[in-house]
């Protein structure tokens, strides 16, 4: 049988490159799974992309279309705004169409509410949420002597708000001596000229910038900073996502940091060759390793239950562990938040050794500063999950 997965991505518009990469990685992992029978010899994965145009409403429309076409497994690689809409729509659909349930795999949106107040039995979240990532970031900042004045800039939507909130209280807790000299939000995906914002950062006298920006909002931000000769450090979540490495380029060396669950130079013995194969197939970089866990865990569940029924497999996935390329990961049952290691890495010139792979042919790649094991990276949850009775 084929396990048909419909994944909703922004395949057009400003964020298309991000969505495109996520979709390709998904299909890449599906092929890998099929080659190695992750879902058993007689089950194959098939991943189809639906264009949510980065808009909640459009994404819900696409969800309806996918469901109408008989998909029961839905992926989502969008902003948190979209994720909330999808979770809500999935819940409604499931309550109205018992026996026709669908489940949602979110491998991008990291607003903590998704696994707390808004947590749902039908949604699984594979990227570590903002609280987890910021905690790690704040610890790194604590140990970084030349960080004194921090400027927080983000996209004006839930994700940006969460980053700023989390960052402020984490800094207050962990390094009270660090001063937050600015906290700014800008429209999502529509700012083309970041010069004014850079001028603002400059005026604030900040030596470090914390941002949850992604896609062009990050690329343009760094580019503008570069051309204004701003020498501040950048602590980011998505500097390794398509588009950004190019604009960071040489000038960002040793200044731009990324907090992520994995990067191409993270202990590359386990994922030997995968980065290279991906690169040469898509002429793009592999950074969405979360999709390995998505496909892997679903496959494992299918093998366990021997059925394609979403609800059964959802139950099977709760508390499941999986041996991913970056170590063993666990789908926590209480809130469906994947527990996995976290890295802090710095943009450095490739050296063929520790920094083997570069990104977007810049000659620069990621160098691990610290790796946090999964149990250290966890955070508590307030989720009260209500499960269907079986």
């Amino acid at each position, binding site marked *: 049988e084929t396990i048909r997965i419909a994944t909703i991505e922004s395949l057009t518009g400003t964020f298309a490159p991000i969505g495109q990469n996520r979709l390709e990685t998904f299909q890449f992992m599906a092929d890998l799974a099929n080659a190695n029978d992750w879902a058993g010899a007689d089950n194959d994965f098939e991943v189809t992309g639906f264009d949510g145009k980065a*808009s909640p409403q*459009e994404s819900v*429309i696409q969800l309806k279309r996918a469901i109408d076409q008989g998909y029961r497994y839905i992926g989502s690689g969008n902003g948190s705004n979209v994720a909330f809409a999808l979770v809500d729509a999935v819940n409604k659909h499931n309550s109205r169409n018992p026996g026709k349930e669908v489940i949602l795999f979110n491998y991008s949106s990291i607003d903590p509410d998704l696994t707390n107040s808004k947590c749902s039995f039908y949604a699984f979240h594979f990227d570590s949420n903002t609280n987890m990532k910021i905690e790690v970031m704040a610890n790194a900042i604590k140990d970084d002597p030349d960080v004194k004045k921090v400027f927080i800039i983000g996209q004006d939507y839930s994700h940006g708000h969460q980053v700023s909130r989390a960052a402020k209280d984490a800094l207050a807790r962990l390094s009270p001596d660090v001063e937050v000299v600015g906290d700014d939000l800008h429209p999502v995906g529509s700012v083309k000229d970041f010069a004014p914002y850079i001028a603002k950062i400059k005026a604030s006298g900040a030596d470090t910038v914390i941002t949850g920006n992604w896609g062009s909002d990050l690329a343009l931000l760094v580019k503008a900073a570069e051309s204004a000769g701003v020498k501040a450090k950048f602590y980011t979540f998505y500097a390794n996502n398509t588009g950004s490495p190019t604009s960071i380029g040489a000038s960002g060396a040793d200044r731009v940091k990324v907090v992520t669950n994995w990067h191409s130079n993270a202990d590359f013995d386990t994922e030997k060759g995968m980065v290279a194969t991906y690169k040469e197939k898509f002429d793009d970089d592999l950074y969405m390793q979360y999709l390995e866990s998505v496909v892997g865990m679903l496959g494992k569940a299918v093998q366990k239950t021997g059925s394609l029924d979403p609800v059964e497999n959802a139950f099977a996935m709760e508390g499941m562990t999986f041996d991913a390329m970056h170590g063993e990961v666990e789908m926590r049952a209480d809130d469906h938040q994947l527990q996995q290691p976290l890295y802090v890495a710095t943009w450095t010139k490739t050296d063929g050794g520790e920094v083997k792979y570069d990104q977007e042919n810049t000659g620069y790649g990621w160098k691990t500063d610290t790796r946090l094991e999964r149990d250290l990276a966890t955070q508590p949850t307030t989720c009260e999950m209500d499960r269907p009775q079986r």
Partner: protein
Amino acid sequence: MDRKPVSSLLIWLIFAAALLVAPLIFSQGASISFLCQMGAMTIFALSYNILLGQTGMLSFGHAVYYGLGAFGTIHAMNWANDGGLAIPLVLMPLVGGLVALIAGVVLGYVTTKKSGVVFAMITLGIGELVFAGTHMFPAIFGGEGGISTNRVYGTSFLGFTFGPQIQVYYLIAAWLFISTVAMYALAQTPLGRLANAVRDNPERVEFIGFSTHWIRYLMLVLSGSFAGIAGALTVINFELVGTENVSLALSGAILLFTFIGGTSYFYGPIIGAIVGTFMTAVLSGYTPAWQLYLGVSFILVVLYLPGGIASLFDRLALAAARRMIGCVALPTLSMVVTLMVLTAGAVIAVEMLYHITLHAADGPIMQLFGRQTDTTSPANWLVAMALVIMGSVGLRMALPGFRAAWEGIDSGIAHEPVTAASKQGAAA
């Protein structure tokens, strides 16, 4: 004139029947929710044509009323969900209409002072302003996240919970029918006729006792309200609104649809909405090139079919009325055939190109019209080119005959009373 009401009554019955059976014909999964979208879009397009077709006002901001209606509705629904206000779902469209009406009353007064290009620009400005505004008040417009709601609340209406899509469809269908009748009626009122007068010659209207500003204002408020109803129905269908519902993109889309359908016929926008929704909602599922096809077909309509698709039907009807189908049948047929050949060729080429640019990584093989196609094999490209060439050559040859045949019919129009009557025409 005197026998018109009868025949149009028949047409209305057919219309109603069509709405009733549609979901039975297109029953499989996808198409129901597609029909729902189509219903809402049809009202939206019709309301837009009250401006463009009937009053000659080219607006680039009609989505404002649609969107504000939608937001108004969703707040009302959430309020109702919390037991705050006891309006049953079936009446929610009225809320949408009302909110849009208020918006029209407020915004419309200034915008309608001017006409023509200036009006177009003002609507563009107001549209963008409102759009930007929605981002500034996330508490009201939900910011990037939009606002979601639940259409299943309160006691069920005659046993309908409106959970299932099909029930929603019939709700939308009912409102579509009501609104269409209302808008058609509007076109028949003195105000409706005066709107046409304003469209043709605003200055002279002033000299027969009416204020053009006032007429434009009234028409805008009215069309806005219907747009609001459309917005409300969209909310009921998706249970979610985002700021894109007031966006320029949507205003542009509805202009496209309406014009493709045909602005000088009451039923033009209906065709437009059907074609447009089909392209955006269905075609987009099959090909990434759908926007290209949409744009190109719009351009072709502007260039070669200023009357829109509806004008084709109108002419056919005329030919039939003149018992002249015979003399146009053959040229038209040859025209259609050559066009299809041309299109086929073009589509194949375009699809293969898209595959190469977008899915290069998945190898050269693609699914095209259900068969494996190798985008690298020159053979396929040759086929495409051949079709295109054959098509265009055929077109060259077919065109003169086609033109002549139809001009033969049109030339009659001048002395043909029927046409004018049929233009103000039945909603067929």
